[in-house]
């Protein structure tokens, strides 16, 4: 599903040039659950953004679902992303002005799905995430764990094949963190591919495979014993 070849990303600002990614070769198959780890500033989020078609690589190739998308313009990237990729972030990134229901509904609106169908899908996914009773609340009125569950609901509502999570438990206490990890694992079981950035070894243990990044390069990859999964 995901295949990068010698992927590099260079950020240029007025004074400095940062090589955030340096010849990254990563392969993720459909149905996999991959964790990316590494020290702060090593390029994890940058890699995730490129995988998620939010950004272009500076060099190298990126095949997504068999298509070379590395040089896609923003519009085409959005089209490619729509309905295929869901995002979960450390800071939830919900829209404060929209209710829980409306936040989850967003991807469906941009997919131009009919209102009645939207309603059904959103309510269904909110039930699944166990926050069906909070649909009319605004994000500020929810706890962190609840907010992250709304964010996950939004990520999966369009039933994407790939979910990208950037430190999804980073802002949560361990109980809520575990709940979120259980949800992701459950989604993965149902067939969704997951790539997750994390600092936590415990969270990483939920994954099939751990990729270690250092200074923009993949240093080690460890595959867990499938028996443990």
């Amino acid at each position, binding site marked *: 599903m995901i295949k990068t070849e010698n992927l590099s990303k260079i950020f240029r600002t007025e004074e400095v040039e940062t090589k955030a990614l340096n010849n990254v070769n990563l392969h993720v198959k459909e149905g996999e659950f991959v964790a990316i780890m590494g020290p702060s500033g090593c390029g994890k989020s940058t890699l995730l953004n490129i995988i998620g078609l*939010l950004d272009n690589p500076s060099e190298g190739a990126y095949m997504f679902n068999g298509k070379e998308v590395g040089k896609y313009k923003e519009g085409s990237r*959005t089209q490619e992303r729509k309905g295929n990729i869901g995002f979960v972030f450390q800071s939830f*990134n919900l829209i*404060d*002005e*929209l209710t829980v229901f409306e936040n989850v509904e*967003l991807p469906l609106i941009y997919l131009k799905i009919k209102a009645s169908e939207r309603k059904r899908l959103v309510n269904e996914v909110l039930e699944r995430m166990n926050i069906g009773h909070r649909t009319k609340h605004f994000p500020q009125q929810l706890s962190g764990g609840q907010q992250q569950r709304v964010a996950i609901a939004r990520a999966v509502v*369009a039933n994407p094949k790939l979910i990208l999570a950037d430190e999804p438990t980073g802002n949560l206490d361990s109980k809520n963190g575990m709940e979120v990890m259980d949800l992701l694992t459950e989604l993965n079981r149902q067939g969704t591919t997951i790539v997750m950035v994390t600092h936590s070894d415990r969270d990483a243990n939920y994954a099939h495979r751990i990729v270690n990044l250092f200074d923009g390069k993949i240093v080690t990859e460890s595959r867990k014993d499938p028996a443990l999964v």
Partner: protein
Amino acid sequence: MLIHYIKLAIRNFRSNKVIFVGSLATLCLGALCISLLFSYVYNELTMDDFHNNKKDIYMVTMKRSPKSEWSLPFKNNYDEYPEVKNSTSLINFEKDKIRLKYNNDIYTPTGVVVDSSFFKVFNFELTIGDKNTILNDYEAIILTEDFSEKLFGDVNPIGKEVDFESPIYQGHHIVKGIVKIPSNSSLKFDVLIPNAGVPYGSWVPFVRLKKGTHKSHFDEKIKKSNNNYPYAFPKLTESTTKTVKLKDLYFNNNFSRIKTSQIFSSGNRNNVDILIIFIFIILLVSIFNFSNLQIVNINSIIKNIVIFKINGALKKDIYYQNLVENIIIIGMSAIILTISYNLILPFFNGFMNVNLKPPFSKVLLINVSFLILITGVGLIYPIIKINHFSTVLNINKKQQLKGKQIIVVLQYALAVILLISSIIVSKQLQLMLSKDLGFNTNNIMRVKMYYPISQAPIIRIGSEEKRVTNKKGITNKKEIFDKPEYIKNQLASFSGIKTIGQGRSPLDIYQVEWKTMQETSGFESLNTLLFSTECQDIFGFELLEGRLFDNEMDHDQEHKILINEAAKKHLGIEDISMTTLENISWGKGFKIIGVVKDFNYEHLASKPKPLIIYRTRGSSNYFILFHNNQNQETITQIHELFNELNPNQAFNYTFLSDDIATLYKKEKRLSTIYMVFTIIALVISAIGLFTIALYDTQRRVKEVGVRKVNGATIHEIMFMLNKDFLKWVIIAFLIACPVAYYAMHKWLENFAYKTALSWWVFALAGVFTMVIALLTVSWQTYKAAAQNPVKSLRDE
């Protein structure tokens, strides 16, 4: 989708109330000023455009000498000129010369006697009556809508009978038509009387030329057409006949003679230009402010935009979102604006002394156009910028639109320019109002004691029975000379009165053609003052050489004159005893008996002009010098005397000092208008600064908290925060000063007496702007600085 956009827009307004209200206020205030000023300016610039043949209507003029051009004072026949499609003439009356009686009420309307071809040249619409026939009906009188309402209220005016009186014509008339005068008509009158054969009067002839006729060709053709005119007095052998386009008459400062009638109004192109500049500046200030508010708005929703994009929103979705928000703002502003425009328009009309009545659809169109202009231009920069944002959420590096500072600087620079200019304008006005004019203007009452009817034939038209009317109004020799004597004796018996004079007001000057005997290049129009000997004392002229008039030494009709310094210089007179003057109508041999010191009898935009003073008696216009103040008892006595002489008539008087103030009424109004709009520009700018201060300090709350924890005092924090904002205002001020200085320097060139461009005006404008800006900003920064740091740190 649309519902989604609208919902989001409303939610966004709610969570960014200050920006929303600020945007509305900017648009409404800005567009309201612009729309009002625009309506006025547009009206001025389209003066007389409602006439279908506006480009082909000309007033026929006469150049009696290279230095003077008048409207041709008689009617002529243009049959032999194929270029002339129609011609018409109207008789113009001087101010206060006509009266209209209805029942027992007497009115002094402005009016014209017109030829039957009047409506063939001018396109006034009749709401009642038939344009083609009404002027052939000598019984008819046509009233304007407004005047009819004044006379009859809501009652149907048609068929009402009125008596018309003027020095040359009297008649009994029946209201048969109602005419509409558009607000952009330079010709203004209350009544129209069909001309049933009045042979003379101050004619103002107009021609309507065939389409495509060139003015210069026609002028050349008619050049000598009036030289042999049999009724012309004096003979016009040296004059040439010309034309002036109706459209050019309004802004033309010549032809002051026809303009004393109040029928022909005149405009000041200079003032219109200044208002146009005002419109532009307010437009720019509004655009800048709107743009700034949008930048703040986008900065505050930037995170949302990125989240939308991550969830599948395309660029166009973001644009539509923005578009929907702005359409809602425009729509709301359009409603508020149109309502407030209609509420304010009557006051604005009254204030500017115009009668603008734009139709509702036009008001809406103007308002919406300006709203779209302001928002459209204001959005260009933010929209282009929004394009360059990356979709990547980068919480460490907040993406922010820049450029607010520059916009604030520009906006404030413009506002400060307006402020300095407005202060200078009112300072100049003050100078003119308080300037010593060089003659006495205090305690002088000006009053018309009776309305003389000339001895000339009076034509009475009407149905048979009505031809015979009372003889009350008819004047004879006895009345002309006895009445003044009686009035004088009566007035002299009132204890409050010091001196009584008769004559024309120096403010209502009369132009007559003069030349010195030696002069070969012909006559020229010179200001001429006609009054009785006593007026010299009343006005307190200062004699420089020769002598003043003296009732013992000088007699009626003698060819003796006084001149002022300017006239002596202008006419190149070395020794007054060696020169006599010639008047084009009154003959030769006018001896100069003395020279008086120049005094400012005209608007102070110009230095005193050459002036000839001729002694006459018998004017019905009196100057009454009161002993010490304008005491009410004496006014009542004069009023009673007036009533005795003119039963049932309105007693109208003015004091000369008020007449002088009236000279500056237009300036005063404009100066107030400038001030009001300047303040609005400052308010708009303050809205922007306030909003920026609000959002910028909010972003720095954490920094403030850290500094406070580390020992910074509220004062230090406020100084730190305010400094950043006030820096912009100071830069704006530094930019504004030289620009305003240059602009005002240019403007003052219009005046003979100039106020100084004092440093304190600039300082005042600077301090005023700074104080307002400081208050605006401190409102926010104090809140931030005073906050408990523990709270702000925990919040983050």
